[in-house]
């Protein structure tokens, strides 16, 4: 077995066309044999190459769904329940890989995260467990506040503190509640807008991949700039999402 895992593979998709089916010997598709339909042993591939896709971020989700259904009809354990136990095991592995890949790629945020991970970027601020840990110990996690949000966050935190105090005293200030509710809505809208912004970042990245495929040179600096933009955006988005969650917690408790 190779040393690689799904999270660290950076190589381009292997030329799988040279493989032949273990059962009938015919040339086959990656996961099952085109000729006899038998499920093939799983190979460590990244999610993009599992679907035979380039590592581009703008993808047609409805076409992906169609592929997902088609592959499910070949790989799902229900359809291989009468096969030998080794084949059933492959079907289980392939099918879970298919589901994991589809779940990750169909969601724009998860897809971007995954691509960045493939590119070797560790998104520190996204470290979920660290956040949960900080929450459980009652401390606020030290997070870098995105500069453009500084003023807003400061104001919001003051209001949240006031609301907490009021709740403790059993007081009720509808005006404050309304104001905080309004801010939450604005934050949510901001996050929606970030999603649109992300799509422009995708275009920059996808253009680099297109150039690569046409064998045009792409400098590491260009790649890095495209990645960093997305990392920055995801960090901001994550920050806002946590903020919305905190606000919701105070409002609903």
């Amino acid at each position, binding site marked *: 077995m190779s040393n690689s895992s*799904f999270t660290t593979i950076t190589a381009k998709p292997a030329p799988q066309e040279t493989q032949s089916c273990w059962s009938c010997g015919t040339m086959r598709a990656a996961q099952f044999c085109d000729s006899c339909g038998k499920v093939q042993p799983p190979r460590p591939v990244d999610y993009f190459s599992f679907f035979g896709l380039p590592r581009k971020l703008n993808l047609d989700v409805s076409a992906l769904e169609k592929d997902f259904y088609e592959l*499910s009809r070949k790989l*799902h354990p*229900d359809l291989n*329940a009468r096969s030998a136990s080794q084949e059933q095991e492959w079907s289980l592995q392939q*099918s*879970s890989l298919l589901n*994991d890949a589809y779940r990750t790629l169909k969601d724009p945020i998860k897809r971007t995260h995954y691509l960045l991970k493939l590119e070797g970027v560790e998104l520190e601020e996204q470290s979920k467990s660290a956040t*949960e840990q900080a929450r459980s110990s009652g401390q606020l996690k030290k997070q870098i506040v995105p500069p453009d949000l500084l003023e807003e966050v400061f104001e919001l935190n003051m209001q949240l503190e006031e609301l907490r105090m009021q709740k403790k005293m059993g007081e009720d200030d509808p005006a404050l509640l309304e104001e905080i509710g309004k801010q939450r809505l604005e934050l949510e809208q901001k996050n929606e807008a970030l999603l649109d912004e992300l799509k422009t970042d995708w275009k920059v990245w996808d253009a680099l991949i297109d150039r690569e495929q046409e064998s045009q040179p792409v400098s590491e600096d260009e790649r890095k700039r495209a990645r960093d933009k997305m990392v920055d955006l995801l960090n901001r988005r994550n920050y806002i999402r946590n903020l919305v969650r905190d606000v919701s917690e105070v409002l609903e408790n």
Partner: protein
Amino acid sequence: MSTDRIIGIDLGTTNSLVAFLQGESPVVIPGEDGVNLVPSVVALDEKNQPVIGNAARKYLAETPERAVYSVKRLMGRGVDDIQEELKLFPFRLAEDLQAGEVIRIKLGEKTFTPPEISALILRQLKRNAERFFGSPVTKAVITVPAYFNDAQRQATKDAGRIAGLEVLRLVNEPTAASLAYGLDKKQNGTIAVYDFGGGTFDVSILKLRDGIFEVVATNGDTHLGGDDIDNLLIVIALDDTRGDLGVDLRQNPEAVQAIRKAVIEAKVALSSQASVKLNIELPGGKRYLREITREQFEQLIQPIIDRTAGPCKQALKDAGLKPEQIDEVVLVGGSTRIPRVRALVKELFHREPHIGLNPDEVVALGAAVQANILGGGSEATENMLLLDVTPLSLGIEVAGGVTDKIILRNSTVPASATQFYTTQVDGQANVAIHVLQGERELAKDCRSLARFDLKGIPGMAAGMARIEVKFLIDANGILHVSAREQRSGKESEIQVQPSYGLTDEQVESMILDSFDSAEEDFRQRQIIEARNEADTILAALDKGKKSAAWGHLTTDEKKKIAKMEKALNAVKDEEDYQAIRKSIDELNLGTTRLAELMMDTAVSTVLKGKTMEEADMGEGPTAPHPMAKAEFE
């Protein structure tokens, strides 16, 4: 010789059923008594032999300490998390239960784990199917509530194994129901299944696309059902009798069972009547009388049925859908017969729910469809494929007692996640992993599934080992874990301590009919059943000879019958099943005209003013079960 026939089983809290796909459509296989529903009641008779289903109900009333019902509520649970159930259900636990041990329930002087009791029900269904097919059955699809966790699923699978069944797939009940519906009308759309049964509540939202049934979200409560409604009414009756009569019946299991029976009947009646009168005989000859109007009933149960609203809203939210985007709502489970429940469903989904198939049978029918798909499919199930999800997030405990979720709820199964672990100190050989299931942030608030010990990590400096642990949830919703140290490529040994469950060895020792003897057991049973049938037909023939119809036969006919009767008598005590069967069939055929003549006589007797029952019809093997007449009065 065993055929590859796969049966579909609905192992319910209140009733269980077995079904299979006959040609184009799924059908329920009735029991010996001709009834489709096998009550999920198990009792021990005077000789400590297990009695299942309708026959066990008698014990529930007469010797409740030798009977148990609703055992599904205990599947895959520990003593500490069934305290609420113990207040409401007459479960008698073994006195010597140790902490962390699988629950054992007392029946008479014996004790059984919940999977063993479920296995007795499963074996009964297996036998019903074998009687029906005339051949052994070893493979099954069993349904479970969609919201069942890993331990509850594992316990169900164990029960199957103990019953001598290879469980090819656990299917979620609402999903199974959708398969039964989908068979009729192969159409695309989004449906919601609202499954409110005897002990559990599930809601699932599915996308139907050209035969693919893709569950997009599921939610539920594994301890919410018609049982809870019954218990409300029982508590009222018990409080009434204590208050007005000054007798506390809580310590009197017979009386409690009598009340339970009466309130269930009242509950059922209130779905079609405006009011109902409870009239229960109490110990000491007094009667408990009470009128309940539907309005009072609805008020009383509102808090219970309201508890189904939360999961429905959450499922819609998880699916990213608004109620208006649901094309159809399907009702499953006996509790959906309550008009107030239907009204709530209408409020939640903004549409009239669909009530096409019998809500008691639809899950078993769907299980039969899935069984057919697993068996290679047929014309009826061509292109059908189920893509189900895991109902609960899977997590592992990280520093600070926090749950790190690695597979989120509503992920399509099979699903997997890979985690990397390293060592904290030089030369560390073991790493402990605590696996959890649930949505809460802290490990202590989630369900503990198991503790894994990775062992035999090669000696390395702290932080050097890189152990890849793969968590995989299979299509049954059951977790598998494998581990590998990446630098050495060595498979790490995993020691599993299930938090609530039987070990492999325990299951092995419990198996009722081991696979090896299944064939032999079946042959024996077949012979016994054939002998019983022979006795029945010979007794009927004796009766026939005394009837007026006998006189209408020709001497030749009578001679032939006598010859066949002699032949059957000669073989029926031999060990040759085929010979007995052949003689029975011959005698059956040979007496057709006699039976017809007797029927004519019987019908003409009816015309003279007698009822069919009084008429001399002889006793057939499918005479009504004696229990049916012993109703509460």
